[in-house]
């Protein structure tokens, strides 16, 4: 009876397959085959790499990779039959892709640390660049003005985007009005706005209205556009985790909806909302294009957010990359390292707080 519900496979390979018996220990022949499949291509390629004149890139792509595929296929075929070959191809490709991604990441982080440390020093963090030109040695000048600018711009962006983002999340999870699907749709669409378009938008407003010019406020507005979707979506996820008993309990005690949200729900979600804010800041802090357009650049320190153009770390890096002076390039790497450390700190804080929230949920 029960066999009737199971349609017999049409594929002859599926018909003749043997059970795999996963509970059995792997036989020694399997281990040997895998070891050989790993060792032989590696040894041959290493030999060619060191003792022949074939370029390394060619050895890797034309010799090592096909050889590895072939060796793995043979090993799989000898231990598991024809059906193992497809698996071996997937495994080799999967490991290869992982190694590729890791090499890229390692190269990025490694070069950032190695080259960035050359420029890094105490004065690099607090001095500005008023008397600095690209050929000035590294003993002078720094990113103090850019750091201050980034903090001002991110602060303004947070002042605008955080309340609106949290209110959007409250609308979706607490008020639950009729427009919830549309609001979510627009928030998601907004997260697809390219950063350069956000900068252009603020620039158009500035040009067409004449209310402000390139300054920290304009940069903050552009950042706020990019920050809002991240804050809103993360805060929404966080508010969803707050148990309904808290809300119903507060309402049952006679609290109004507004009070329930302000005095019960939001305080309960405090760490999660801080996480949302941190993730929002980390999302925007490295964006360059909007600041190039909306905030401009400055070699001196600017304190007034509504005054003249202001420097920021991403723009500082941008201006020092393609400069034919090694010290200027070293400054770019140093500033990049500082920026990356800032982002890493923000993400780590967000992770730690996020973990705390889950732990306290019950």
């Amino acid at each position, binding site marked *: 009876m029960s066999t009737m519900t199971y349609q017999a496979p049409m594929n002859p390979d599926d018909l003749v397959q043997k059970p795999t018996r996963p509970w059995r220990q792997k036989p020694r022949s399997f281990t040997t085959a895998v070891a050989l499949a790993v060792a032989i291509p590696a040894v041959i390629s290493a030999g060619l790499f060191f003792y022949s004149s074939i370029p390394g890139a060619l050895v890797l792509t034309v010799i090592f990779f096909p050889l590895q595929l072939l060796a793995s296929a043979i090993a799989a075929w000898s231990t598991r039959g024809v059906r193992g070959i497809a698996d071996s191809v997937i495994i080799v490709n999967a490991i290869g892709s992982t190694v590729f991604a890791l090499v890229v990441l390692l190269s990025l982080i490694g070069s950032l640390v190695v080259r960035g440390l050359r420029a890094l020093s105490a004065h690099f963090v607090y001095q500005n660049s008023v008397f600095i030109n690209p050929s000035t040695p590294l003993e002078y000048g720094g990113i103090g003005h850019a750091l201050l600018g980034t903090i001002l711009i991110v602060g303004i962006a947070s002042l605008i985007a955080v309340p609106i983002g949290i209110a959007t999340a409250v609308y979706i999870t607490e008020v639950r009005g009729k427009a919830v699907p549309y609001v979510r749709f627009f928030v998601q669409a907004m997260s697809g706005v390219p950063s350069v378009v956000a900068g252009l938008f603020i620039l158009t407003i500035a040009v067409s209205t004449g209310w402000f010019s390139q300054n920290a406020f304009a940069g903050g507005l552009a950042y706020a556009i990019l920050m809002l979707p991240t804050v809103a979506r993360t805060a929404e996820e966080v508010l969803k985790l707050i148990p309904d008993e808290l809300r119903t309990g507060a309402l049952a005690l006679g609290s109004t909806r*507004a009070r329930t949200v302000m005095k019960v729900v939001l305080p309960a979600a405090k760490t999660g909302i801080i996480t949302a804010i941190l993730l929002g800041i980390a999302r925007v802090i*490295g964006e360059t294009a909007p600041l190039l357009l909306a905030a401009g650049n400055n070699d001196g320190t600017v304190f007034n957010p509504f005054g003249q153009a202001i420097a920021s770390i991403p723009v500082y890096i941008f201006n020092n990359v393609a400069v034919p002076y090694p010290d200027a390039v070293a400054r770019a790497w140093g500033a990049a390292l500082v920026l990356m450390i800032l982002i890493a700190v923000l993400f780590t804080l967000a992770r730690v707080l996020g973990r705390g929230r889950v732990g306290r949920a019950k």
Partner: protein
Amino acid sequence: MFVMAGVPFGCPQTSTSLRQHPDMAHSDLEQRDLNSAATSHRGDRVFSRIVTGAAFTSLIVLAGIAIFLGVQAVSAFQSQGLDFIFSTGWDINTDPPTAGIWGMLYGSVLLAVIGLAIAVPVALMLSIFMVFLAPQKLAAVLTNLIDLLAAIPSVIIGLWAFYILNPPAEGWQELLNQYLGWIPIFENTSQNFSGTPFIAGLVLAIMMIPIITSISREVLSRTPPDLVNAAEALGCSLWTMLRYVALPYGRGGIVGGVMLGLGRALGETIAVFFVLKLTFETNWYHIIESGGGSIATLIVSRFGEVSGPEELNLLLAAGFFLFLGTIGVNIVANLIVARTGRMQK
């Protein structure tokens, strides 16, 4: 197609039974309107209005971008005619300046296609490794590392690509040209291998890989373990399990993730700025020939030396088309991801 296609027999039934989960049953209390009798407090009404108003900020911003940049696009069409889209060139010395962004629009798409061709297989294989092959601890570490890669700002990727990736990549392209030069896309007549669409596409791929990986990893890891175990019990190998269970199950989400990556690639500005030599002749398919186009990079590179309001207007109009393209791709991607998410629950 074969019988194994029938393996996900459990999913439609599971989806309905989960929706009738007891936790979802008493949600009618929560859907009460704030303006209903129970909470007709004036403070509540004010609160509700403020929050609702704030919730529509995203719509206002999107509409604002569309209107402000759209106005600029209209005036660009008035001065340039349809040639603004369908011709190629950027001459600011004539009066009024003549400009056509076809090469840039096409270049953006070409870069994105090159990036996708590299990023999609890598990201898919990476997520398969993380979900089905790696031990759990290694997978957790890899997830964090991929998140780290996603968090690196584009200006740092650009810096790295300019100094670290570019020199070896030029060598790779020379090899490609040397051995595969008979294929039209690998032709290079100038022997100049810097600033090519290939390098820019490679950089875009590096920026897309974390996005596509994190979404397809999540989608694949949501494959019900019952189905995976059942497939293994039926004697499926890894490949058959992927082919008939996991990939069909996560197909929509993976496509959505790829499109989200595409949206990012189309809007990417700074990293491309450092590795692509911007040329106004359309580079149709010579991907290892120096010079290409990118609409986002055009805006940043021309903005620094913008000659006057006419040229600024042209750049803003170009930004309008960038906005239309990326928003369109992003909306479609989100719809696909959301639909798959619903189907999987």
